[in-house]
């Protein structure tokens, strides 16, 4: 490994003029990589590549966006191979260039002056970057296909699903309409769409998100491509559906022997489904290897940091996440040498001189000071147990909370049906569930942004749901909220200082502007932002910084209770860890009680003392964090937990079967009896008759299921 660094040029400058020389060099490196990769793969798992030569081979890919006065280096020389029957993951945070590089590999970037891409890409040993556009078009969809992130917008709303699957077959395969239709039905069956003859003639809006993504996969498979690139294929989907889709993809790869490039930000997915991993940072691959190597023995400092920042389901308590300080660099002014060095504690002078170069087929990393950690997540420091919080007081006691939405024409969505939960004082209740389960409605009714249909919410002797206008104004100082999307939760026209000072002045918490300015500075300090941020506008800040401002704004009112509505779901892993740590610190510093609403079980696990699991407007299981995560009782909770891909899953847990069948029923027409019965493996006829009452397993652990 050391020897390889010496072959790396001492100062790589990204200039177009240098590309030929660089690609020659990396071509030599790649030979080594290929043979080493073969060796690794052979003993890695049962999915040995069928062919020796890679199906897809990307070499020294650079992508630049050119504007009148700036040059963005989005991708800076990445190389990777994909073999038959192999899942290769490109993993990294937003802006690292993983999606752009895949568009470049598909040659879907505009070939105009504003975007340049160079390098080489070979499909079956043939360099197709050199092909004219017309020849490339014939390759696309036939030999190399792509699945996009947003199944909602990636299908044409005006054409039937069948038509969209058939299109590439008619274009590339010289098939008759009849044959193509027959194959479309076959494909839909293969990707798990039931009743394909009928559903072929339906339009995308008649498909759920998961079903659309299945249709997208059918489109990609239509012409039997050799390689499929999947760009964040499940990011827009719920965790149970995500598991279904990835199981499907993995199965197809194994069965058909295609090569799959999986682009994702989710390290858990990588662990469970990928054979090889390339970790990207600021346009470069910083570490490559088999999933086991990279996830269990990460060497590059960025990979180590990233892995430390991921909250884990199997992590018994809320230790601080090991976050990476700072922000990813702007592509406009990348630091010289290793792009990570400014956030890296091990960086030295040598890091500024050269980026290092990943080499060594098996496990390579572009780092001069590689860390050497066995499972960095296995060294809990400063463990402190918080399970004992259960016997403290109750900050908020919600009983029988119901909310109906009347849609007109007599249709009613019963968004919440008699919800009960308690938020421990000075502790956190995590409310978890998939989209559409009603968890956000809980927050909105508690905040009186919507009026509840029935129920009570007792906060220190006041019923938040029946409080008068004047009382609500009072309560709003004590009960605050942090919103999900940092992009929309701050008024784009107000400076940060103004946004923070306005509530203080309106409520008379500060008497003068000067006093408010002092308090603003204090609040910014509390959430770890420099005081000069007060003069900025929201668009001049990053997502993580904005979320800190949102927290500061809530803290300004000196609340005792904060509702956190998906506070970190819009943030990248390393930033997410920073914000989660901040929230934990503030809680212990200020004695705050949190109601945390989230879909990410790991986030819930990390901050919550108690957890309530919601499904279709009902709470199916509540308990302390350890009860619920270590001994889940309700079949839905169990399925949910099984769906979450965890880092510990490397190579082991793959292909253990789909956790939950089917999809969420329409909230307009929920199943009778137990709402989960339509997807439940234990369901019997009785489940359709009775709405299960909560069964107590301990003082805190309640499960609404008649089968446990």
């Amino acid at each position, binding site marked *: 490994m050391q020897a390889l660094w010496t072959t790396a040029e001492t100062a790589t400058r990204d200039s177009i003029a240098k590309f030929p020389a660089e690609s020659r060099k990396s071509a030599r490196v790649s030979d080594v990589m290929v043979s080493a990769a073969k060796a690794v793969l052979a003993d890695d798992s049962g999915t040995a590549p069928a062919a020796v030569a890679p199906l897809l081979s990307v070499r020294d890919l650079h992508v630049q966006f050119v504007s009148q006065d700036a040059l963005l280096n989005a991708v800076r020389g990445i190389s990777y191979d994909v073999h038959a029957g192999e899942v290769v993951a490109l993993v990294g945070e937003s802006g690292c260039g993983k999606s752009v590089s895949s568009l470049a590999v598909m040659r879907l970037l505009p070939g105009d002056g504003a975007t340049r891409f160079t390098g080489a890409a070979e499909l079956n040993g043939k360099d197709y970057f050199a092909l004219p556009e017309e020849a490339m078009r014939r390759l696309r969809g036939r030999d190399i296909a*792509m699945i996009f992130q947003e199944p909602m917008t990636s299908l044409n709303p005006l054409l039937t699903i069948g038509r969209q699957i058939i299109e*590439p077959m008619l274009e590339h395969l010289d098939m008759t309409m009849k044959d193509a239709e027959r194959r479309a039905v076959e494909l839909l069956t293969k990707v798990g769409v039931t009743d394909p003859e009928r559903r072929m003639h339906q339009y995308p809006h*008649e498909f759920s998100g998961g079903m659309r993504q299945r249709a997208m996969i059918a489109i990609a498979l239509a012409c039997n491509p050799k390689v499929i690139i999947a760009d964040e294929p499940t990011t827009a989907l719920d965790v149970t559906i995500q598991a279904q889709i990835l199981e499907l993809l993995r199965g197809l790869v194994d069965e058909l022997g295609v090569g799959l490039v999986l682009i994702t930000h989710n390290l858990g997915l990588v662990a469970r489904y990928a054979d090889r991993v390339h970790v990207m940072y600021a346009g470069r691959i910083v570490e490559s290897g088999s999933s086991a190597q990279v996830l269990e023995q990460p060497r590059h400092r960025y990979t180590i940091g990233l892995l430390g920042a991921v909250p884990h389901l199997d992590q018994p308590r809320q230790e601080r996440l090991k976050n990476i300080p700072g922000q990813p660099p702007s592509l406009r002014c990348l630091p010289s040498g290793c792009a990570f060095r400014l956030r890296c504690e091990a960086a030295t002078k040598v890091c500024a001189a050269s980026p290092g170069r990943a080499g060594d087929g098996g496990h390579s990393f572009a780092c001069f000071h590689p860390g050497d950690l066995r499972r960095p997540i296995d060294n809990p420091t400063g463990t402190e147990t918080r399970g004992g919080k259960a016997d403290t007081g109750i900050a908020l006691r919600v009983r029988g909370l119901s909310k109906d939405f009347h849609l007109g024409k007599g249709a009613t969505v019963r968004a919440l049906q008699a919800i009960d939960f308690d938020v421990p004082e000075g502790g956190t209740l995590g409310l978890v569930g998939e989209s559409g389960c009603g968890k956000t409605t809980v927050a909105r009714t508690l905040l009186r942004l919507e009026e509840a249909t029935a129920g009570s919410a007792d906060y220190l002797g006041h019923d938040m749901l029946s409080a008068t206008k004047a009382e609500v104004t009072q309560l709003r100082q004590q009960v605050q909220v942090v919103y999900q999307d940092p992009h929309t939760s701050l008024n784009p026209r107000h400076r940060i200082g103004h946004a923070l000072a306005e509530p203080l002045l309106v409520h008379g918490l500060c008497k003068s502007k000067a006093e408010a300015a002092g308090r603003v500075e204090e609040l910014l300090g509390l959430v770890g932002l420099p005081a000069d941020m007060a003069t900025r506008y929201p668009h001049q800040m990053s997502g993580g910084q904005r979320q800190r401002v949102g927290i500061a704004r809530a803290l300004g009112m000196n609340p005792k209770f904060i509702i956190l509505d998906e506070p970190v779901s819009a943030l990248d892993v390393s930033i997410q860890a920073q914000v989660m740590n901040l929230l934990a610190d503030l809680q212990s510093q200020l004695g705050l009680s949190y109601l945390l609403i989230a879909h990410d079980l790991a986030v819930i696990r990390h901050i919550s003392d108690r957890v309530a699991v919601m499904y279709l407007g009902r709470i199916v299981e509540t308990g302390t964090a350890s009860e619920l995560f270590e001994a889940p009782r309700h079949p839905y909770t169990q399925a949910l937990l099984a769906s979450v891909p965890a880092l510990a899953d490397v190579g082991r847990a793959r292909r253990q079967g789909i956790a939950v069948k089917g999809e969420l029923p329409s909230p307009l027409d929920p199943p009778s009896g137990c709402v989960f019965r339509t997807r439940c493996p234990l369901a019997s006829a009785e489940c359709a008759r009775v709405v299960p009452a909560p069964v107590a397993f301990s003082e805190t652990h309640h499960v609404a299921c008649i089968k446990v």
Partner: protein
Amino acid sequence: MIRYVISRLLLSIPTLLGVATLIFFMLNVLPGDAVETMLRAEGGNPTPELVASERARLGLDRPILVQYGDFLSGLATFDLGTSSWTGKPVVEEIALRLPVTLQVAVLAMLLALAIAIPLGTIAGVYHETWIDYAIRSFAIGGIALPSFWFGMLIALVMLWYFNWLPPLGSPSLFDDPLRLLQQLALPAIAIGYRYAAILIRMMRSSVIEVMHEDFVRTARAKGLRAGHIIRRHVIPNSLLPTITMIGLEFALLIGSLVVIEQVFSLNGIGRLFLDAVSRSDLAIIQGIVMVLTVIFVVVNLLVDFAYAAIDPRIKLA
């Protein structure tokens, strides 16, 4: 689809009722005595007795709500009252003039659509090239030139260079379609240009927008031909906002119709309207506003149906 059509038809009734009410009260309650104005227009200085008897004859001395009730019940039976000027039923007066107006409108609309959809698509597909600039310049002309002035200019040009003016009279569509076309071509071009320009701009911008949609990227990833993508994916999706615009901007077309009839001395609804205004013939004014509103509403209904025919998402809603 049939249920959709029926429900949309029923939904437009309250709107029309609202328009009728608004117009009725606008004309009858707002200041100004119509009868007096009318009698003055006939010449002479009417005595108060004459005004009163004339009001009684026209039924204008009854309480306003009674008149309103009459007006509404008349509407229900397609009886719009009688003209205070000619004494003939309003429906008859309007029916006499409506064909010319409708023919110009339909001709202008067809002309505009035939130009706008291809040009807008081409401009959008080749945006930021010389062909786009050329089409946009053409469209800017349509936006900026007032149609009545543009009508005058083309008439003058025809006169100077070809010594030709549109034929007079009222040729029938069935007996002498060519002569009718000669008569209506210039007014239709004059008002169609502006309409076309608006639609070109709409079509162009929606084509550009749709070309950035994810599903177009999907279509490209499938390796489909550019022409196929534009025909099957881009154009249908771009048509949706353009179709909406066709309905909305039809209001402007109707407005320019009234004016253009004056320029080309066409004996259509616009002329009748202006005459009625100068004689304060309230029944005619009300009737024409109702008819024009109905036309506008009907065009918008057709537009909605066309939209629903293209967009499968509508049928469920």
